[in-house]
């Protein structure tokens, strides 16, 4: 395997696993104490998931080689949905019918 690609894929995998362990430590760090609502933690966990998701799409699925408009579309879609999810998390209780 070309050395450069091999190293890049290994680095991406290490980063993905590192962020996973970080979000685990944040999300499960209190070791089964009573769960309480935590907006900052939820924001961090969702943003870290979005960053991981983008790394998988860009690096493993190789979207980074796609034309600029495709990459812009994918980024717009991802961050648009993340924005909607965070808005619903924050203000969903006011949308009750």
């Amino acid at each position: 395997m070309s050395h450069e690609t091999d190293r890049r894929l290994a680095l991406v995998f290490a980063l993905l696993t590192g962020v996973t362990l970080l979000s685990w430590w944040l999300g499960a760090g209190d070791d089964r104490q009573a769960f309480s609502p935590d907006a900052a933690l939820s924001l961090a966990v969702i943003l870290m998931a979005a960053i991981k998701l983008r790394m998988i799409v860009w690096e493993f699925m190789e979207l980074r080689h796609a034309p600029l408009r495709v990459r812009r579309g994918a980024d717009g879609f991802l961050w648009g949905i993340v924005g909607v999810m965070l808005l619903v998390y924050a203000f969903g209780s006011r949308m009750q019918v």
Partner: protein
Amino acid sequence: MGASSLPLSPHRSPSRGEGCHGLPGQADIWYLVGFEALVFSSYFVVYLLYRSWNPDLFLQSQQQLNQNLGVLNTVILLISSWLVARGVQAAREGRHEAAGKQVWMAMGLGLLFVGSKLLEWSLKIQAGFEFSTNRFFSFYYFLTGIHVVHVLFGFVFLGVVLYQLGGPRRRSQPVIEAGAIFWHMVDFLWVMIFALLYLMR
């Protein structure tokens, strides 16, 4: 991430299986990925809406899940995605036997993932948490269940990849890449499901 700061026309190896759209794999697989992303996004938004209407119930129920098993699931799928990405690269360089080995290992990890989900479901059901227990558990079984169905579809895609790697006459780099792209999609869908069901508060 820095990916967007890369040059606009990156170096492309001639053997990368690009279709006429300049995308890796085939355009069709990207339509499928876009469709699935849209469908799962709507599930996630509906989940968050219900969650915001009854945060206490969701928090109490989330506490019944095993976060450690969730993180193990995530790492299993990340390793399998890494192996598939290495396999695609090996196939591109003409090392088809090595590529086949990586894909077999990735499928093994996929099987381990499905096994761990079956174990998790049976433990939850034994503990009295069923689909109809409450709204959180309905979402939990629905999201993890539909995701496992996608893992099973992923086995079909990787099976096609293995078949293609097996003989020189049936090899098509775009098809191999398309199968890999589906497997990575299964991985990134789990990444978001893990965050929403197991980690957020």
